[in-house]
């Protein structure tokens, strides 16, 4: 794996400014980022660092000011509107608040992206059932999202994101609304999907544990800039940025707690 690294996502000098109340607010200031094909890459940063904005720029839910985003060889920012809609079938996205469609059953939620992508009817059912089994929702297909627990809802979110067999998933705080145990299960599921299909995942989060558990490489986003990036292990052991240092401190603290509590109580 390590030897055949191929860049899948390449972001160069990406800028984004918002104009709340007419005043410019620079949210992304020259982002450079490379994510390899098939890896789970973490982006960590505090609230307001610009993580969601970065995520939304990648599939153009947000228009960026300047820079370039290459995804699997496609220059995302150069696509026409029509091409963009098509390209989005190849990019799955999962959200903190799940954003499921309450008017649809679980089955319909998972089938929706296939219908939008124009997959023939005969294939839709098989594909939905297959995906539901992968995420462990076979029993819940007739239920509406309103009847599900948080963990189950995120499983629907994941199923909806991967049902069209995309090459890339953007996960924006996918586990931040879940309890620790459910978080682990969802992370395991993402890991499994990544292992089985070789899908590339961009894991955006403010949760240390999630990154540590699932990512090999990561970047730290601080006030709209990538302040460091590299192997997760290296960054936690030898942080070079304010945010990295802070996270590393918390990380060491947690480790000590685990060690002492592991031996003691």
């Amino acid at each position, binding site marked *: 794996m390590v030897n055949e690294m191929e860049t899948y996502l390449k972001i160069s000098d990406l800028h984004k400014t918002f104009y709340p109340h007419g005043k410019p607010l620079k949210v992304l200031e020259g982002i450079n980022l490379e994510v390899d094909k098939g890896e789970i890459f973490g982006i960590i940063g505090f609230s307001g660092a610009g993580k969601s904005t970065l995520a*939304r720029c990648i599939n153009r*839910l947000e228009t960026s000011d300047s820079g370039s985003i290459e995804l699997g060889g496609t220059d995302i920012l150069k696509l026409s509107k029509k091409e963009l809609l098509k390209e*989005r079938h190849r*990019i799955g996205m999962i959200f903190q608040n799940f954003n*499921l*469609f309450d*008017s649809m059953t679980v089955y319909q939620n998972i089938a929706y*992206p296939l219908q939008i992508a124009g997959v023939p009817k005969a294939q839709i059912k098989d594909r939905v059932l297959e995906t539901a089994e992968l995420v462990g929702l076979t029993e819940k297909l007739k239920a*509406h999202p309103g009847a599900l627990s948080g963990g189950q809802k995120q499983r629907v979110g994941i199923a909806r994101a991967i049902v069209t067999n995309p090459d890339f998933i953007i996960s924006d705080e996918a586990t931040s609304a879940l309890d620790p145990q459910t978080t682990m299960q969802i992370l395991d599921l993402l890991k499994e999907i990544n292992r089985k299909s070789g899908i590339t995942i961009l894991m955006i989060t403010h949760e240390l544990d999630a990154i540590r558990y699932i990512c090999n490489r990561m970047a730290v986003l601080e006030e709209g800039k990538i302040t460091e990036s590299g192997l997760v292990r290296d960054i936690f052991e030898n942080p070079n940025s304010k945010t990295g240092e802070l996270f590393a401190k918390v990380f060491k603290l947690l480790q000590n707690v685990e060690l002492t509590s592991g031996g003691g109580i």
Partner: protein
Amino acid sequence: MSLLDSSLWEVIKASFDPAIWKELWGPIGETLYMTVVSSLIMLVFGLLIGILLTITNPDGLVPLKASYTVSGWVINCLRSLPQMIMIILMIPVARLFFGKAYGTNACIIAIAASCIPMYARIVESSLLEIEKGKIEAAQAIGSNNLSIIFRILLPETVPSLIRGFTVSVISVLSMTALAGMFGAGGIGDIAVRYGYQRFQHDRLFACVYILIILVQLIQGIGNLVSKQILKTRNLI
């Protein structure tokens, strides 16, 4: 029987006289006809305009500031007209459509014209209630705007749309009573003609019962349907 020379109790008793009610079935039919047809017209155009308002909103799917501002302004103007004045204004329009300026169909035009702007605003506020994240999810999936409107926006907000429609239908009903004075017939016409002009308060009372029952019925059905949908979705 009139309250001027009989006691309230006697008038109430008289208001249940079958002879009175026999004459009311026709007007009830006219009222229902006007309410149903006006409500359907209001539903179609109100939804259409409400959707347009929502998507042309500066934060909407197809932001069109000029169009949004102008249509909002026109709707506010129309809504500030008292219903009676709207009926009078619509007389020439009705003449254009039906060749006469009075009667049931002419009044339907006035009622619809008056209620469409109101219902459009109610639709707009229902549609704006949708969680932005759902629209975003649909966009991330690659839906075009038409799919977002018809497969996400409307279905997701349908319980709220139904409640808004219920309220609006009741407005339509109350306006049919007013339109009765312009030759539209119906319960309102009877109430005004007998109750106000001839002091036959037993008939007036009978009309009031009918209006109360109709309003209760409409509200009840609306609540039931919207509740049932929420229940199916496990949202209550």
